[in-house]
């Protein structure tokens, strides 16, 4: 068994976008086209996040998700503005394998509990955006990292596990888009605080970063910029590492 490598696509104004530390949005392409390419590359799994839904007060669009799911012969996780049981019902019916909850999990942990009870823990992933405040302390932020919720990431993760989340999508706002590597101390700390899978996100630039995150305790890795940009001038090009390059060095356990 090899660890999962999951492209994470962000839906912004007009299509797929990529950001750096949640700023400097760049247009990447049409969602369905990009998803089709990833499906052809047989990626392990795909995460699509509508990053403006919560700040714009929107609900997820089920028909968009249905079209996306139709292109995927691998699991699709969808998130963005998910805050009600109706949202979940529509998203699962549309074909999402997992639903990602972010702000709603912070606002109302009971919602995660209700969701897990109805659909099973394995269908509910909780995403958290972690950012360092000016005082140097890391905490969970929401609303595109504009609101500091003053919650410690490890404590939040453990709380989410208690209410039934099946997976934690741990995103470092400070590392996002930088391609300098994951925030390994953060990955380690949060992975140790729970017994459910933790997906490392934010900062991946190469396959060795993946191996570092797994060694730090993550069960899976996610990346955005690394899979959609290429070369010195960051041209948009969809890539995905081949299986051989992902196998850990001899002697190291892979799970």
């Amino acid at each position, binding site marked *: *068994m*090899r*660890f*999962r490598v999951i492209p994470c696509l962000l839906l912004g104004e007009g299509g797929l976008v990529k950001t750096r530390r949640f700023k400097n949005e760049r247009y990447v392409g049409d969602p369905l086209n990009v998803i089709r390419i990833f*499906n052809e590359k*047989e990626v*392990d*799994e795909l995460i699509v996040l509508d990053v403006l839904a919560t700040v714009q007060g929107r609900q997820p669009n089920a028909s968009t998700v*249905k079209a996306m*799911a*139709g292109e*995927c*012969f*691998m*699991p699709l996780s969808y998130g963005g503005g998910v805050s009600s049981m109706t949202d979940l019902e529509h998203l*699962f019916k*549309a*074909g999402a*394998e*997992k639903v990602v909850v972010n702000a709603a999990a912070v606002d109302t942990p009971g919602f995660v509990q209700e969701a897990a*009870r*109805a*659909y*099973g*823990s*394995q*269908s509910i992933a909780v995403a958290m955006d972690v950012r360092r405040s000016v005082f140097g302390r890391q905490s969970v932020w929401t609303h595109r990292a504009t609101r500091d919720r003053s919650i410690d990431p490890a404590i939040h993760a453990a709380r989410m596990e208690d209410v039934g989340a*099946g*997976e934690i999508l741990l995103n470092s706002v400070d590392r996002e888009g930088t391609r300098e590597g994951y925030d390994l101390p953060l990955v380690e700390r949060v992975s140790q605080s729970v*017994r*459910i*899978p933790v997906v490392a996100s934010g900062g991946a630039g190469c396959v060795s970063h993946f191996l570092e995150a797994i060694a730090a305790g993550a*069960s*899976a890795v996610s990346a955005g910029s690394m899979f959609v940009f290429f070369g010195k001038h960051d041209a948009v090009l969809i890539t995905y590492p081949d*299986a051989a390059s992902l196998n850990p060095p001899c002697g190291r*356990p892979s*799970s």
Partner: protein
Amino acid sequence: MIIIVDYGLGNLGSVENMLRRLGATAAISGDPSIVAQADKLILPGVGAFDQGITNLRARALAQTLQERVIERRVPILGICLGLQLMTTGSEEGQEPGLAWLETKTVRFQTNRTSSDKHTPIRVPHMAWNEVRILREDVLFGGLHRDARFYFVHSYHLAESPETTIAVTTHGYEFPCAARRDNIAGVQFHPEKSHRFGLALLKNFAETEQ
């Protein structure tokens, strides 16, 4: 006509998509009268055991399936929760299962690991994993050497030599595919397993069993 049973749970669209890609004739239905005419059946499922079995019974589907599967011996493939519902019961819930497979569904024992690993296993088992075939079966005909399938579950079938056709390892080895005559099931999601799942569903759709 392959009927994908709609009992309110499960990723029906993805199964249908894959069958359509294979050129198989398939439809989704939760209507017992349509299910009663199926040549082959697929029982998908994502969610909780009790909810699943309750839904099947409430929609008169359990009865129709019993007749088709046990009496008429129509080939059926259970997927994930669908497979688990075929057992006698699950530690996840209180309700009895369909009991087509003489084994029960149990929770992952998180403290039990294989001898060379010291870290407790994480649950749900959410991963692409390989399978080890114990008994030759039409489902796995032509299985590629590098075949792997997508798993996402917190419960699994208990060991059962009579019904297990394949196993996989997550901390320890457990059954991931089972069969009793025309009744088969897989713990993983073929509809989410790219060409490996495509091959398995093709085998199910095209072979007599």
